[in-house]
């Protein structure tokens, strides 16, 4: 999606940019400078200042913030964020791929309806949807009540499942938020599949499993890669859902940065964490094989 457009410049019948063109471009340039470049530079500068907590900042240069960021606790937080993002991505992939595959090869009217169905949650506020999980996962919630009425609880499980405010709840929340982001790009790839190639594979004696593995999956790989980059990368830094579902116990990097900026008030340290996250982010973005639409 957007990822592949970024480094692409459309082939235009462009004239060389004259002074007037530059003038017309200047509002855009000003906007970009003020609200994209400048904030990042300020963030970088802040990360080298000294914070004394509660919002006070002293203008003394220091490496302390970065030193602390590489300290055990924060490395753990980064690692955990990556871990959760990875789990979320894998789960989204496993759940989403078959769905995308089915929709992509469905006939036209069913396909459009299913697409619409997938997109609606995509465009409604993720907070509203995440909050609804409380109703399901709570100790007195629907899932536990269901298990109890089916007598699963006294027989197989000794007590009610404690799901809310746990890492499991956080993962559920993340998967729920990002699933459509995985389904849509894969669908895009599946839809472009050449049916005759699959027929050919079947004619050559390949069973459905082999046809999938050898033909379909490689051909839809660009969609999968796009989906992965749309899920993995943003979910590293998610914070609202994780703090809601995890009861403020599961600390991820997004929660930590928010805490530093708005609660603990150690702005320079928060800025350092932010810069490191940005670096991590840019690296995974650049390294990620995005494949090319062929």
């Amino acid at each position, binding site marked *: 999606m957007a990822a592949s457009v970024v480094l692409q410049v459309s082939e235009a019948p462009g004239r060389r940019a004259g002074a007037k063109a530059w003038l017309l471009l200047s509002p855009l340039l000003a906007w970009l400078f003020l609200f994209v470049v400048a904030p990042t530079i300020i963030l970088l500068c802040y990360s080298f200042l000294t914070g*004394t907590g*509660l919002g*006070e900042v002293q203008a003394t240069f220091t490496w302390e913030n970065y030193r602390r960021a590489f300290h055990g606790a924060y490395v753990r937080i980064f690692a955990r964020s990556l871990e959760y993002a990875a789990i979320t991505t894998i789960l989204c992939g496993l759940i989403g791929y078959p769905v995308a595959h089915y929709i992509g090869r469905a006939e036209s009217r069913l396909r459009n309806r299913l697409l619409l169905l997938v997109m609606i949650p995509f465009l409604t506020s993720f907070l509203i949807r995440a909050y609804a999980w409380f109703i399901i996962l709570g100790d007195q919630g629907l899932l536990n009540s269901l298990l109890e009425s089916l007598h699963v609880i006294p027989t197989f499980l000794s007590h009610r499942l404690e799901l809310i*405010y746990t890492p499991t709840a956080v993962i559920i929340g993340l998967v729920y938020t990002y699933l459509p982001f995985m389904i849509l790009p894969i669908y895009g790839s599946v839809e472009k599949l050449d049916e005759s190639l699959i027929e050919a594979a079947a004619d050559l004696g390949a069973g459905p499993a082999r046809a999938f593995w050898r033909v379909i999956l490689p051909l839809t790989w660009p969609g999968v890669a796009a989906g992965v980059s749309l899920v993995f990368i943003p979910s590293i830094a998610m914070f609202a859902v994780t703090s809601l579902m995890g009861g403020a116990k599961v600390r991820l990097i997004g929660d930590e940065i928010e805490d530093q900026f708005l*609660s603990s008030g*150690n702005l320079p340290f928060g800025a350092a964490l932010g810069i490191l996250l940005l670096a991590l982010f840019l690296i995974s973005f650049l390294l990620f094989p995005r494949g090319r639409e062929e």
Partner: protein
Amino acid sequence: MKRIVSTCVLLGLLLVLPSCHRKPAAESLNLFAWSQYIPQEVIDGFTRETGIKVNYEQYDSNEAMITKLSQGSSRYDLVQPSEYAVENLIHRNMLEPLDFSLIPNVKNLDPQFRDLPYDPGQKYSVPYMTGTTGIVVNTDKIKDPIRGYRDVFQEKYKKRIACVDDNREIVSFALDVLKIPINEVTPENLAKARPLLAQWMPLVRVFNSDDTKRPLAEGDCDLGVVFCGDAASLYETNHAFKYILPEEGTHQFIDNLCVPKGAEHKEAAEKFINYILRPEVSKIISDKFPYTNPNAEARKLLTPAQLANPASYPKTDHLEVFHDIGPGTKLIGELMSELRSKE
């Protein structure tokens, strides 16, 4: 084509329409206060009487409030700091002195809440509500006696505990158990508190200062360390919720209304403070958030049941009070971040 454009324009107008019905406010008051602490009814009553629109922004810890104030990009007219936060703000010259000629109702306060040590001469603050932090136990679920923090943070209550999401508070529990004065926040003392906290943190199910009573009310937790108003609310709905002041010690807090420097609507703020101090208004606050009410006139309006609520009006001996610990805040923040990451 033209149809599309005109449809869009119409849609656009339709969307802006809802904003038109709002009458332009004559004046407004930017209130920055604790969540679950000022009833909407009180705010609405103030707006009805004075025509001043109140923008109520909420926070869940003093540190969050002070940090936001420090950033200089927000202008608030009224904040609600606890006693140590008032100290910090006075020290950093971030409060405006109050014009008490606009707050005659300050005479309604009980004399013991006038001219308190954190604001000598009572120039910057007016006490709003006071209370204690303590233990609440659902005695329907827990039959063992709970007398203090050590009884709460036991393995057998793992994941059944709710706790306020306040780093300073949590550290003070450990310091109380170790008999270290709660304001001596030094690296050495924190190092001593560390193993205890490391043991306690995984036992807690929910950290939440906005609504600590919900997990307890909904049965997700059976006991917890909460602000007394939450415990009192729980007690009102179900007398099985007992409030206990920990035997190792606890502290008393006094929350105040103050006007930060640079406030644009100082007079409106002072009007609001005066309004809050009216006995009948203060009573409404006590009804909704049953903390300890410092307003002597309001107390006369409370029911015997309310005054007998052991969480609202506990029998207190001399309790400690938090003081501004300056750089200690940063140390606490670092310690707690580290412990939370260990989950």
